[in-house]
């Protein structure tokens, strides 16, 4: 019993200390003077890294999910003779929920884990220590551009996901199942509202971008500098950021679309 309490206490303390370290990291990475000489180039490089690396998986998954959505939506809607509502069903589902959430989960698996592994490897090979010795703050040089790149890339990736998913849905719904193209698009246009649906989806994606990149970078810096350390840190990034995305999605949905 006492043992259990002790263990719970230790876990609690460790978790709190971890949150503290992560908070300090975020603060130091975001705050402070901007390095105009190297900053932009570093940011562009990281944007390329996180963006382009995730792009393929985002496009492929987006297409497939759009196709599945159309198929599932059609089989339900056609029973009520409402298959012309397929456009609004698909677009609302994607813009409000699936787009940001699935894109963020894919982003965590692809870019997040790569960020953690990259930074963890830098730590294990003493590159971070060397930087510090030479007089560059690794938080500024390594963490900051990666954090901003993730925050910028995530909303864009989510919109790309939405776009290709809708195209996939059109392919299946209109091309294969024979829903009328005109009613598909016009239904979609009439029901989707910019503020309510599009903007809220972008806000969600932005929030997920912050959280996933933050967790990935923190786990990288907090890695135990051994091969096992890097692999556990990478796993932790994917698990923690996926859970964080889903939990945050619930909270944000409750706030944005909840009963009022």
């Amino acid at each position, binding site marked *: 019993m006492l043992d259990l309490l002790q263990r719970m206490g230790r876990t609690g303390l460790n978790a709190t200390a971890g949150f503290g370290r992560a908070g300090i990291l975020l603060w130091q990475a975001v705050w402070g003077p901007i390095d105009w000489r190297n900053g932009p180039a570093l940011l562009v490089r990281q944007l390329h890294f996180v963006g382009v690396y995730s792009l393929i998986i985002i496009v492929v998954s987006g297409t497939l999910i759009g196709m599945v959505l159309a198929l599932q939506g059609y089989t339900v809607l056609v029973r009520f003779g409402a298959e012309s509502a397929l456009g609004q069903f698909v677009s609302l589902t994607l813009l409000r929920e699936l787009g940001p959430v699935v894109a963020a989960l894919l982003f965590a698996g692809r870019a997040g884990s790569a960020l953690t592994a990259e930074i963890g490897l830098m730590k294990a*090979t*003493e590159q971070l*220590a*060397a*930087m510090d*010795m*030479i*007089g560059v703050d690794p938080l500024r040089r390594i963490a900051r551009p990666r954090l901003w790149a993730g925050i910028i890339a995530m909303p864009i990736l989510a919109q790309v996901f939405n776009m290709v998913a809708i195209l996939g849905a059109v392919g299946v719904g209109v091309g294969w199942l024979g829903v009328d193209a005109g009613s598909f698009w016009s239904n979609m246009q009439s029901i989707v509202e910019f503020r309510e649906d599009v903007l809220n989806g972008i806000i969600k994606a932005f929030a997920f971008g912050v959280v996933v990149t933050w967790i990935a970078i923190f786990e990288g810096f907090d890695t135990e500098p051994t091969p096992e350390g890097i692999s556990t840190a990478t796993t932790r990034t994917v698990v923690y950021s996926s859970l964080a995305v889903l939990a945050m999605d619930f909270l944000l949905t409750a706030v944005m679309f909840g009963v009022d």
Partner: protein
Amino acid sequence: MTQNWIEIRKLTFRRGNRAILDSLDIDIHKGKITAILGPSGCGKTTLLRLIGSQLRPTDGSIRVDGTDITQLQRKALFKLREQMGMLFQSGALFTDLSVYENVAFPLRLHTQLSESMIRDLVLMKLHAVGLRGARDLMPAELSGGMARRAALARAIILDPQLIMYDEPFVGQDPIFAGVLRDLIKRINDAMGCTCIIVSHDIAETLAISDYIYVLANGRIIGRGTPDAVRNSDDPWLRQFLQGLPDGPVPFHYPAPEYLLDLRLGEG
């Protein structure tokens, strides 16, 4: 002024309850090569990190030229580190930069030199380590020995007053270990800098050092000139220097009596 350029007193460093370094007293003379020998895991890298102020000691002081660096603010610390070069055990070249850019990195950061000046300085240092022809290679394309030398060029690019070498001879073939040994000696003579080598490579280290400290289990167990250390009859030193498997540093991790453990003592 005092001969001891760096004075370490009662330096203690703990992680959790474990004292990794326990009340060390070390003096480093200006312009000399001081070696700290010890088995792996005894805290050598930790000691260098403390001298470079990347870690703060639990207790004790490190004075460089009279100032206690454990009390320095961040800004003064970075200023101090420009006077220090460190050769990390793993080389620690930045993997996304070429050899040339790695060596130029500290120059670009700390000086306003023109591109042609930077080029000349970088090529001079690369020439000194024999890698002038490898300037355009990426770190991943270098062999272990070449990476170590490129890292050395980067460590000395600002002509530091203090160069710290972390296990420079580990994982090097005998030829390259010899090359590196001569290089360290040559740099020390030519630049007049002070060197600290931490290593468990006894022969190579004794050959070039002016003074030796032997570290085991976080404590200094012996000190002296290479000859004095070689001829010492202290059992700890003898075990370490001759690589005896058992002695004061036990071969066996603490364990219950062997026969009892096997239950041979029972009925």
